């Protein structure tokens, strides 16, 4: 008790006030704010993702085409780092000290708490060495990943490649985390969800030193990993390799189908590249090279190149003409060096004259087919050219020529067959007729198709009246049936009977003796039916084209070969097609002299290519890989 006794109240109030403030604050962080609970959980839990092995890819005969190899990523969690010997680490990983510091900085900037990739695809020896010394580097761990490996360096376009997910995918699909791999193109992309399996997760309880104590709650939160499904594709690996070998010196495409099923036997786009070039770390360095190569090796010509079909289209003209009954098998037209009407002239090479339908196919007479077009477009069934044209176009639609066919690969383009409206706009209604568009009859002009459309057309002829959508998947493990759209028959608008004369004509093209345009494609003991084509190219040499199927009865293979800038169809495309057929049907090629001749290119290609900086062109003549 003294004169200042009242000051006790200041103490009392101060103490009570502080207590109150604390209680309020505690209420705030313990009761109101729920986020601390989350932080606590994430402190103590640690989830390790288990990456499943990606599904393998087999060819139609069960030969393995794509398999997995282990790759080792080094993962770092900056928060858990303690001082370590950067020199030693840089030595183990074979990078510079600055490299180590840079990567640490990148990781820290990304997140202090969340693990991120410190270094990708370290080779096995280095990873093993680091693993041994891991106790010296707390905060790091080694994560095993799988990378793709290819038994043969083929089918890059069809198979596609696997790369890291980009931001768009991360935003849209929560399955993927930064640093995950995803199929970027080809079959790898089309069947991504089958091939990738399902990530698993093991949740551990860990303490502040990031040492794993035990499985969290006995594995209650664990998710089992599911291995990816294996895929069997329709490709024939051996044939594919052969096709790429034959096309090595050229620019162009080969598409071979099994007509009765629509299965794609080979899909060749030249120039091509070795699939290894886009695996793992190579992807970053090689993609730029490939993308800037002037010959566009990444461009899948089989699906995306729009070419004029040239004389191969005459087969279609014949079919339509017969179907519309404006011509018959015995319809004849004479031709003396070409087609003449008034001032209009289209040249044709010298041959017997007059020719009937089958002979016209055999000799590939331009005049004949321009006349066929005339007959179709002046058909009295239709009151004007435009309507007759649209009807003509309708047939093409049913043959799969006017829309993308629907193969699994996402980059298929369409050909181009204009509708009548197009010509109406250019020339004015009623101001155009067969003469204006006569080049369509011989597969030139505005008419464009893709190689796969050509092959598909050929398959329709081989089947005498239907096709099945070309596709690459034959079977998926764990899945009973493939998509029904790949087994559905598309019946063409041409009657089956009308195909026979065309088939006859195509038989004679190869086997008919004098006048036949592709006698060099003949194979001993097999009746091959085909049609040559030579497309005019205003920029350089003509393109060489050939379609074929064999055997004539019960055909097993329908093929379309397109070789840019190599002149007559006979010269290059036909032998290539012939060799491919021989290889497929007999298993080996006896005409090795022919093989060697084909592979020795003599004509230069228009664009600059094969400079030393590109690694795009893949094979040497015996198919070995760099």
């Amino acid at each position, binding site marked *: *008790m*003294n*004169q*200042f*006794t009242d*000051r*006790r109240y*200041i*103490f*009392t109030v*101060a*103490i*009570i006030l*502080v*207590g109150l*403030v*604390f*209680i309020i*604050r*505690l*209420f705030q*962080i*313990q*009761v109101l*704010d729920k*986020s*601390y*609970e989350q*932080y*606590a*959980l994430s*402190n*103590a839990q640690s989830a390790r993702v288990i990456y499943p092995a990606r599904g393998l890819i087999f060819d139609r005969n069960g030969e393995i085409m794509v398999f997995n190899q282990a790759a080792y990523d080094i993962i770092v969690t*900056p*928060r858990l780092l303690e001082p370590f010997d950067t020199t030693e680490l840089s030595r183990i990983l074979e990078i510079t000290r600055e490299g180590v510091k840079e990567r640490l900085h990148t990781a820290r900037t990304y997140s*202090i708490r969340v693990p991120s990739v410190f270094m990708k695809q370290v080779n096995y020896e280095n990873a093993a060495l680091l693993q041994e010394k891991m106790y010296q580097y707390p905060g790091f761990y080694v994560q095993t990943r799988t990378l793709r490996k290819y038994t043969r360096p083929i089918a890059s376009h069809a198979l596609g490649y696997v790369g890291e997910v980009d931001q768009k995918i991360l935003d849209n699909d929560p399955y993927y985390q930064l640093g995950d791999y995803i199929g970027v193109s080809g079959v790898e992309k089309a069947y991504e969800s089958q091939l990738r399996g399902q990530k698993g997760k093991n949740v551990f*309880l*860990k*303490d*502040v*030193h990031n040492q794993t*104590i035990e499985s969290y709650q006995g594995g209650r939160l664990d998710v089992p990993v599911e291995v990816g499904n294996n895929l069997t594709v329709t490709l024939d690996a051996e044939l594919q390799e052969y096709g790429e070998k034959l096309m090595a010196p050229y620019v162009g495409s080969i598409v071979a189908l099994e007509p009765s099923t629509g299965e794609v036997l080979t899909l060749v786009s030249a120039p091509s590249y070795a699939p290894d070039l886009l695996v793992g770390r190579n992807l970053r360095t090689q993609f730029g090279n490939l993308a800037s190569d002037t010959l566009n090796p990444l461009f899948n010509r089989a699906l995306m190149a729009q070419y004029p079909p040239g004389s191969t289209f005459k087969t279609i003209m014949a079919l339509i003409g017969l179907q519309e009954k404006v011509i018959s098998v015995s319809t004849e037209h004479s031709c003396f060096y070409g087609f003449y009407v008034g001032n209009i002239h289209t040249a044709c090479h010298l041959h017997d004259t007059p020719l009937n339908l089958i002979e016209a196919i055999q000799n590939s007479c331009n005049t004949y087919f321009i006349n066929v077009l005339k007959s179709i477009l002046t058909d009295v069934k239709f009151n004007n050219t435009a309507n007759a044209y649209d009807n003509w176009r309708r047939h093409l639609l049913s043959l799969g020529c006017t829309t993308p066919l629907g193969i699994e690969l996402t980059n298929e383009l369409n050909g181009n067959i204009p509708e009548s409206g197009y010509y109406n706009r250019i020339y004015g209604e009623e101001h155009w007729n067969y003469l204006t568009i006569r080049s369509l009859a011989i597969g030139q002009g505005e008419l464009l198709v893709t190689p796969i459309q050509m092959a598909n057309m050929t398959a329709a002829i081989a089947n005498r009246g239907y096709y099945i959508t070309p596709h690459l998947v034959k079977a998926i493990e764990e899945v009973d049936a493939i998509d029904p759209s790949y087994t559905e028959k598309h019946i063409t608008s041409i009657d089956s009977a009308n195909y026979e004369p065309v088939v006859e004509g195509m038989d004679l093209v190869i086997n008919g003796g004098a006048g036949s345009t592709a006698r060099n494609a003949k194979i001993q003991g097999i009746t091959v039916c085909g049609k040559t084509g030579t497309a005019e190219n205003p920029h350089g040499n003509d393109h060489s084209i050939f379609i074929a199927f064999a055997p004539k009865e019960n055909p097993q293979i329908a093929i379309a070969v397109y070789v840019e800038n190599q002149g007559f169809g006979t010269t290059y495309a036909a032998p290539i097609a012939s060799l491919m057929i021989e290889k497929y049907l007999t298993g080996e090629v006896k005409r090795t002299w022919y093989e060697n001749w084909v592979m020795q290119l003599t004509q230069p290609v228009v664009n600059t290519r094969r400079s030393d900086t590109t690694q795009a062109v893949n094979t040497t003549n015996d198919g070995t890989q760099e």
Partner: protein
Amino acid sequence: MMVRRNNIFANLDWISILMWLVMLTFGWMNIYSANIMEADSGIFDLSQRFGKQLLWIGASILFAVLLLVLDAKFYTYFAYFLYAVLIVVLIGVLVFGKEINGAKSWFVIGGFQLQPSEFAKPITALALANLLTSHNYNLRKFWHLLQAGAIIISPPMLILLQPDLGSALVYFAFIFVLFREGFSAHTMLMLAALGFLFFATLIMDKVLLLLILVIAGTLIYMIVSRSFKKGAINLAWTAGLFGALFGINYLFDLGFSLFILGLVTLVPISIGLTIKGFKVKDYTNMKILAGVIIAIAFTIAVNYAMNNILKPHQQHRIYVTLGLEDDPQGVGYNVNQSKIAIGSGGFSGKGYLNGTQTKLHFVPEQSTDFIFCTVGEEWGFLGTTFVILLYIGFLLRMIMMAERQRSSFSRIFGYGFISILFIHILINIGMTIGLLPVIGIPLPFFSYGGSSLWAFTMFLFIFLRLDASRLELLR
């Protein structure tokens, strides 16, 4: 002797002792939880902290009895002596002591460690009480005040040399004792204002602060002189001059900062007001002005000290607490983990022995400075509130007991106990919930540590002994 002993037991404040025991028990339970690793250690396992703490608790009970047995006069007679011994010991630890965690604060005897800076607290309180009750002592006399200051400041100075900032800082609480004993309230307010100014300097932009000080000065003047007009005129002059200077600076692109311009403005204003003041013989203006100038000087000094004297990590700690900097990984890590541990406890906690943060050692210094986290995590809001209410109750009871002393010595000593106890609780808990910077001091009766436990027990039981004989004749 018998009579006396009966006296003691009759007058002993059993409620305080009960509260003390509750604190010890609950504290021990939390230390146990924070340290238990395997289920098969018995509670007496001396290799574990909880085992040791049990030992310290046992020892402190014995110590408490010993303190109660001694005569109350013992403490008054030996106050200065103990203080002298203390000073010697504090110097001694600097020479002979062992360095742990970067501070030479420990004596190692046998297998045990002793921290003299803890015992310095009750002993300083004894010495201070002795001084303040000495003959003819007057707190208002400057020389006497200085002596009190010397007693208060000497131990922390020595402790700072160890270095142990936290332990030294708590001595500042003795000012509260002086306040209770008559220290000028005005001065206290000034000191408090300086404290606020200190933080304001750190948080606010200095131009804004300058503006606020000028306006505050003007307002104070208006209130004191009861003239709105005069104050407004002064303000108008100041604003006008500032505007002119700003204009000149801008037009001629002189590049002076706003702060400098502000300071320069004040110079002629100050001179003008001073002259006017002398003329009119009204010095209020000048006094207020002087106050404002001192405040400005103070902020400049604080800025200088912060940037040039404090080490970066110390600056950093303060900034992190003030929320000016974010550092979840470095200095902020402790507090962050602490908040997480406490926050994740929810309303009723995760249950005794179930705290994941505690068990997995996410909170550093968990059984010592951050023991409150274990309470928060395992006992939840209910637990933490219980502890706070317990402490408040205890402190309020101590105040009541201090006030009922007839002897000033006892009262002063009591307030010493209250102040020191309060500052520990304030800083320790405040730190764990992120309201105050991280300063390493223990939570009384809770934190693991023999020295701290004994020192606070000493504090309490000396006071209890003094209190028990409060009814005896005045000394």
